[in-house]
C-alpha cells in the first residue's frame, strides 16, 4: 500500500493549487454534501451566525440559510435527540458539539436512541456527530478530552478519527452518506496545523479502512488522530526508522483487522499510541485483537504509549505531563526495535 505522500503524488485528477487545512476540509465536505443532497443539514450551538466555536461552519449560513444551519439552545441532549428524530425520518443531520467534552450531555441519546434504533426497529438513523476532540491547546479538563472509549463498546455506532485534511474530508463525506450513526472525532489541534492540496474530485474515504503512513518490516505502530503526526515526528529520533510501519487506523469502529494483522505478521512487534488515557483505552482492545488473531507471530510484548489516568490539566507544565509527545514515542519505538 502506498504511503500518503506517494498516494497524493500519484493520484490522478485535477487539483486545487492552494492547500486546504483540516478545518477547511471539514467545511468543504459538509458544503459539498449539502449541495448534493437537500436532506443534509447542520445543527448545533453557535454554528450559524457565529460560524461555530472553531469557525468550522463559518459562512455556511450565508449559502444554505438558517433552515439548514440551525442554531440551537444550549442543550446537547435536546438538539441531539432532535437530530435523531429528523434522521429517523430520512434527513441526514450533521450535529456539531462545540467540544467533544460536551458530548457526554448527549450520551444517552447517542448510545440508547441513535445506536439501538436500527437493531430494534429496522429504522435507519443516518446521522453524524462531529466532536472536536483532543488536547494540546491548553483547554483544561473540559475542553481537551478524547471521549472515544465512552462510545466504542456501543453496538450500532461507527467511529472515525481522521488525521489528515484528505481524510477529514473523505471520511466526513462517507459518514454523511452512511446510513448509520457515525461519531466523527475531529482533532482540534489539527484544525489549522495540517493542510494539503486536495483533489477536486468528489472522493470519499471508506469507513473501516486503515492506511499505512510508512512501511517497515520490524515494528508496527497503531495510532489515530493527532497521534499519527506525533508518531511520524518520533521517527526522526529512531535510527531504524525505515523499519517502522505506522498504521493510521482512521476508523476505530468497525476496526480494519486485516490491515493490522497483515502488518503484525510481517513485523512481529507492536506499539500502540493514543492520546486518550490508559486504563480502558483503545490500546487494550487492540492488544486483545492481536493476541487473538496473530499471537504466534509476535516477537515481543505489545507495548503502548498513552496519556496517564488523570484528567487533562490546564497549566502548561501539567499539560506536558499529560501529553503523549514524540520523545516518549521514539523511546518506546527504539526499545521495541531493540527487544
Amino acid at each position, binding site marked *: 500500500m502506498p504511503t500518503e505522500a506517494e498516494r497524493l503524488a500519484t493520484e490522478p485528477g485535477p487539483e486545487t493549487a492552494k492547500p486546504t487545512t483540516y478545518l477547511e476540509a471539514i467545511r468543504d465536505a459538509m458544503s459539498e454534501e449539502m449541495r448534493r443532497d437537500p436532506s443534509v*443539514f447542520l445543527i448545533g450551538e453557535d454554528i450559524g451566525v457565529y460560524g461555530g466555536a472553531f469557525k468550522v461552519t463559518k459562512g455556511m449560513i450565508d449559502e444554505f440559510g438558517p*433552515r*439548514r444551519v*440551525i442554531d*440551537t*439552545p444550549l*442543550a446537547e*441532549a*435536546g*438538539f*441531539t*435527540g*432532535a*437530530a*435523531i*428524530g*429528523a*434522521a*429517523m*425520518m*430520512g*434527513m441526514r*443531520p450533521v450535529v456539531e458539539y462545540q467540544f467533544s467534552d460536551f458530548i457526554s450531555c448527549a450520551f*444517552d*441519546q447517542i448510545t*440508547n*436512541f441513535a445506536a*439501538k*434504533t*436500527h*437493531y*430494534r*426497529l*429496522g*429504522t*435507519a*438513523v*443516518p446521522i453524524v456527530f462531529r466532536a472536536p476532540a483532543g488536547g494540546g491547546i491548553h483547554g483544561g479538563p473540559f475542553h481537551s478530552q478524547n471521549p472515544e472509549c465512552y462510545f466504542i463498546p456501543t*453496538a*450500532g455506532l*461507527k467511529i472515525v478519527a481522521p488525521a489528515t485534511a484528505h481524510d477529514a474530508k473523505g471520511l466526513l463525506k462517507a459518514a454523511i452518506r452512511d*446510513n*448509520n450513526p457515525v461519531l466523527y472525532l475531529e482533532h482540534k489541534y489539527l484544525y489549522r496545523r495540517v493542510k494539503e492540496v486536495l483533489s477536486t474530485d468528489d472522493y470519499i474515504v471508506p469507513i473501516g479502512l486503515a492506511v499505512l503512513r510508512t512501511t517497515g518490516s520490524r515494528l508496527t505502530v497503531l495510532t489515530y488522530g493527532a497521534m499519527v503526526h506525533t508518531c511520524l515526528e518520533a521517527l526522526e529520533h529512531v535510527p531504524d526508522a525505515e523499519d517502522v510501519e505506522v498504521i493510521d487506523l482512521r476508523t476505530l469502529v468497525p476496526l480494519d483487522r486485516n490491515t493490522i494483522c497483515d502488518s503484525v505478521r510481517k513485523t512481529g512487534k507492536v506499539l500502540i499510541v493514543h492520546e486518550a488515557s490508559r486504563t480502558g483505552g483503545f490500546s487494550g482492545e487492540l492488544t486483545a485483537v492481536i493476541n487473538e488473531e496473530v499471537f504466534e507471530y509476535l516477537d515481543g510484548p505489545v507495548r503502548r504509549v498513552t496519556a496517564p489516568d488523570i484528567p487533562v490539566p490546564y497549566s502548561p507544565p501539567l499539560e506536558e505531563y499529560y501529553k503523549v509527545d514524540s520523545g516518549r514515542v521514539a523511546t518506546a519505538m527504539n526499545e521495541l526495535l531493540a527487544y
Partner: protein
Amino acid sequence: MLNEAKGTARPRPFPDLLRRMLYFMSLQREVEDRIVSLYRQGKIVGGVYTGRGQEAIGVGYALPLVEHDVVFPCHRDLGAFLIKGMTVERIFAQYLGRVGGPTRGRDANLHMGDLDIGIGSFISHMADTVPVAAGVALSFQLRNQPNVAVCATGDGATSRGDWHEGLNLAAVLSLPVVYVCVNNLYAYSTPIERQMAVSTVAERASGYGMPVVRVDGNDVEAVHEAASQAIERARAGDGPSFIEGFTYRMTGHSAADDTSYVPPEMLEEGKARDPLDAFVRRLQERGMLDGNELVQLQESVKDAVETGLKRALESPYPESADAAGGVYAD
C-alpha cells in the same frame, strides 16, 4: 397561557368518532387484560406495563391524527398504537418475543414502533422521545410537510432534562409537535409530590412559551378536544402545545408491582372514575348506545383479541443467530 380545557364548549363530535373512542378504549383494555393473563401464566417473560384506567388519554390524542403524522406514545398508551394501525397480532407477538412483533423479538412490551405507519418508539429512558419527537417535527418543517408529531410521557419523565430540553427546543424552533403528559400521580412508586414541588406538570410546561392546557384525562372527549386544537395549531404552523391529562394508575407500575405504597382510597377513587365505564355511561345517558350495540362492540373486541393472539402464537420465535443481525443499516 395556562387554561382549563372546555370539553363541552364546542359542537359534539360525530357519533362515529365516539364509536371509535369506545372501540379503541375497549380494545386496549381487552388486549391488556389478556397480556396480564399471559404474563401470570409465564407465557410473557418480560415486563408488562398496562394503561388500565388511563386509556382515554392515548385514545383521545391519537384519534385526531392523520396519515403521515407521527406519534410517540408512552409505554401505557396501547390505544394510540392500535389507532395508528399496529395490529393486535403484532402487539401480542411483540410481548411473546416472536418474529411477528415489530422488533422481531429484539425488544419487549410497548418499546416498539413502526414509522411506516407513523409510530415512533418509546424507550426505557423516560423523556428521550421528547427531543426526538421535536426532530420528527423538524423534518416536517424542513420539508414543508403539513404533518404533526405527538409525544406522550408520564409525569416522572417530566423531571428529566431531556423533557425540558425538548420542550424548549420545540418552542424556540416553533416546531409542529404536541406534547402530552399522562399524569397518573405515580412514577413507579414515587408520588407526584416527591416528583415536583409544583402541583401540576402544566406549571413546569408553562415556562417554555407554548399553550398549556390541563384536561381530565379520564374524559376521552375532553382529551380529544384539547388534542384536536393543539394538533390543528401545530399543523397550521403556529408551533407546539402542551397537554396535561390527569388520571389515575389503576394498577402497579408493572404487572409485578402490588401497589402496596398507594393509599387504598386512591385506588378506589381511580376505580370509581374508570374512564371506560364512565364513557359507556355517558353514551347510554345520551341515548347513543343501547345494550345490543354495546354487546356487539364487546364481541368484536373479543374476536379481535382471540384472532390476534392466535396468529401471534403461530408466529415463530426468532433463530438465536438472528440476535447478531441488524445492528447496522446497510
